[in-house]
């Protein structure tokens, strides 16, 4: 039976793009369905009734939700070009830092985006600490996953496009080459990889998107 793989995603979502990156790295053909998050399709709601969010991977009619869960599913189902390491301890470290990115880094990035004044300063301090911790994991390595890109690079891909675009849209001193030379060196390597570029977010469109959202939130909080 031919494999049928569908991905419900959204162009600006780092969670959705990381799944695309994994699928492309493994050469898995898939059908992409772009969701309008202000008008979610009935299929999406059927496939992810609990969270009603993207991304959702549907493999031969069976849905899997939550991007980190999807990444592990992909790695276990298509065994070529493994993205997670073999050794249990290395796997634990990769999972630990992936959780750190999603639960800490991205949460703080949201705070930086929506806060102003002193609160924003505190959030920037927090994110600087967190980024430094993450940067440590790159020391002495080509990529987070070692000699070639893997699971943690795929998750950290959010730094390559989103964080840089957020930095530009906000204009605050949050994510710069001066502050994080090792991360930026890694970014330089990543953007040279074809597959990573195939999943890049169109920059101007994204900057517009970020600015519109920030305006809308500022407006609604008055």
């Amino acid at each position: 039976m031919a494999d049928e793989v569908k991905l419900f995603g959204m162009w600006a979502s780092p969670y959705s793009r990381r799944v695309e990156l994994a699928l492309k790295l493994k050469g898995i053909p898939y059908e992409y369905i772009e969701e309008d998050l202000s008008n979610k399709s009935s299929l999406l709601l059927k496939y992810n009734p609990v969270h009603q969010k993207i991304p959702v991977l549907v493999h031969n009619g069976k849905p899997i939700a939550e991007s980190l869960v999807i990444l592990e599913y992909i790695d276990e189902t298509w065994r070529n070009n493994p993205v997670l390491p073999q050794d249990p301890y290395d796997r634990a470290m990769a999972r630990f830092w992936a959780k750190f990115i999603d639960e800490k880094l991205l949460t703080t990035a949201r705070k930086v985006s929506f806060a102003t004044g002193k609160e924003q300063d505190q959030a920037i301090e927090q994110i600087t600490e967190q980024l430094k911790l993450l940067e440590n994991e790159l020391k002495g390595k080509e990529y987070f996953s070692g000699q070639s890109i893997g699971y943690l690079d795929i998750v950290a891909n959010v730094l390559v496009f989103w964080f840089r675009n957020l930095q530009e849209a906000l204009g605050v001193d949050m994510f710069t080459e001066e502050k994080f030379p090792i991360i930026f060196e890694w970014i330089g390597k990543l953007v040279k990889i074809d597959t990573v570029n195939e999943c890049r977010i169109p920059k101007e469109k994204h900057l517009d998107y970020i600015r519109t959202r920030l305006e809308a939130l500022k407006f609604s909080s008055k």
Partner: protein
Amino acid sequence: MAEEVKLFKTWSTPFGLRVVWALKLKGIQYDAIDEDLSNKSALLLQYNPVYKKVPVLVHNGKPISESLVILEYIDETWKQNPILPQDPLEKARERFWAKFNDEKLLPSIWGVFTKEGKEREEAIADSLENLQFVEEELTGKKFFGGEKIGLADLVFGWLAYLICVFEEVTGLKIIDERFPLLLAWIQEFSELPIIKDNFPPHDKLIIRYQAFYEKYHPAK
């Protein structure tokens, strides 16, 4: 080389207890170190510098933090009595529900415990919605893992001994007759010796959570 396994936890943390259950299920010998979180040991801070939290598993000197990460590590390192199934889709299901507990269910119920007024009403509504999803997941199953317990059961396991504590302290019914499958699961799960033998003492939990409750709802 002899195996050395240490677990840093506290007597009451549900995140630590799920790791204890996994270790006991697999018959793994370990040293338990119960921390005083108001006075964390230098070793804990050394082993978990990022979060400075329990639980931390240290296997032959190498530390692993974050309970879900620890559970996967344990299952991959000690292969007997697996807590995750072989099939990738079933594994994904277990992981999905484990995340749901930690990211949605537990925080919503904690909200019922800690919040007041309108915020509490919202937390109650959220909790009921979340519990309904969990209830549906148990359809046709004895445990979340099927015929025997797995990762999701261990992660939902706090419901089996802590919900009654919350209910006693708050006077609210959180898991009522609207959730017959969940109530049945709590019964079945609590009857397993490895599970109930390691429940923290109920009386001690009542004292602890009574104190928390008073902190969150100071008498006016």
